[in-house]
């Protein structure tokens, strides 16, 4: 009985610990050593995911951890670290989860090469459809028996009141 009380309480607490709706995009006032560094900062803070939020990058999240990580990002950039070093730094601590651009590994082959594969399949489909054996003149022509049957069928439908001449569906 007590147990059934625990779960909702714990849930409420863990929710209060985890929920952090960001209503406003945070504004930091870092001063960068040059324009290139500033651009790198803006780019990287969009490539890295806030570890705790509901799908937001570091740039847009108001949560304290995102603010901390942005500061860390700034420090690393000012220290002159390369992009790959910074990414490794973050992944070492927070896992692959913080990368919005997943690394190419055996786990993500399908992800990265899938689209190209799909296009290839698509092109093959188009080729197959185009190459389907066109009905040659010989096949199309009805033999005498078939012609008789056709005449009879047309005569029947003419009796029921619809026009006998088949209309083509071509437009434009």
């Amino acid at each position, binding site marked *: 009985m007590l*147990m059934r009380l*625990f779960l909702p*309480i*714990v849930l409420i*607490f*863990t929710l*209060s*610990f*985890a929920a952090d709706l960001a209503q406003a995009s945070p504004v930091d006032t870092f001063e960068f050593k040059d324009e290139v560094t500033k651009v790198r900062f803006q780019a990287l803070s969009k490539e890295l995911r806030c*570890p*705790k939020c509901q799908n937001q990058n570091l740039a847009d999240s108001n949560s*304290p*951890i995102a603010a*901390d*990580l942005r500061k*860390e990002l700034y420090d690393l950039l000012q220290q002159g670290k390369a992009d790959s070093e910074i990414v490794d730094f973050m*992944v*070492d*601590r*927070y*896992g*692959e*989860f913080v990368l919005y651009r997943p690394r190419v590994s055996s786990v993500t082959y399908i992800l990265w090469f899938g689209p190209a594969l799909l296009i290839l399949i698509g092109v093959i489909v188009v080729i197959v459809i185009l190459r389907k054996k066109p009905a040659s003149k010989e096949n199309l022509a009805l033999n005498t028996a078939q012609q008789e049957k056709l005449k009879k069928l047309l005569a029947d439908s003419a009796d029921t009141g619809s026009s006998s001449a088949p209309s083509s569906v071509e437009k434009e």
Partner: protein
Amino acid sequence: MNKIIRFLPLILVIALGVVLYRGLSLNPQDMPSALVGKTMPEFALSILKDGNKTVSKTDLSGDIVLLNVWATWCPTCKYEHPYLVDIAKNPQVTLYGLNYKDDREAAQEWLTHYKDPYQFSIFDEEGTLGLDLGVFGAPETFVIDHHGVIRKRFAGAIDTRVWRKEFEPLIKQLIAEKEQGK
């Protein structure tokens, strides 16, 4: 051949359905730690009770070390605290605290008021150690074995149920490993 192709969309959709069904029992909020299996990172920080005394990772001694991340601004930590006091009595584990991004005086008062279950609390004002550990909030608890390797990170409050489900099996395993000389 044509017939099989006609069934292809259905087959693909069924496969997708299975994946989605499986997905319903997963929790996308769960965050595994990137530190599991790695050694505890180096640090040099003061302890909470004495700003002049510095500790490093060698000071976290014990066969099974529990490092609990807490702060006065964290309401869930208050809920968890009585359970930690209990856990401190457990002879199998040694409990240390990591006071994360907090105010020293307020934290000291808090421990005096609510009892101090920790051997000592590392005072991580800037959150540098927290960052190196991949902490993203409080409370979190790390389990470190006798080699100094992090074996588990639990994000959330510990209570009796959580202890039984999340921690006890691991602790049994670690004791067994130690006995086997691993």
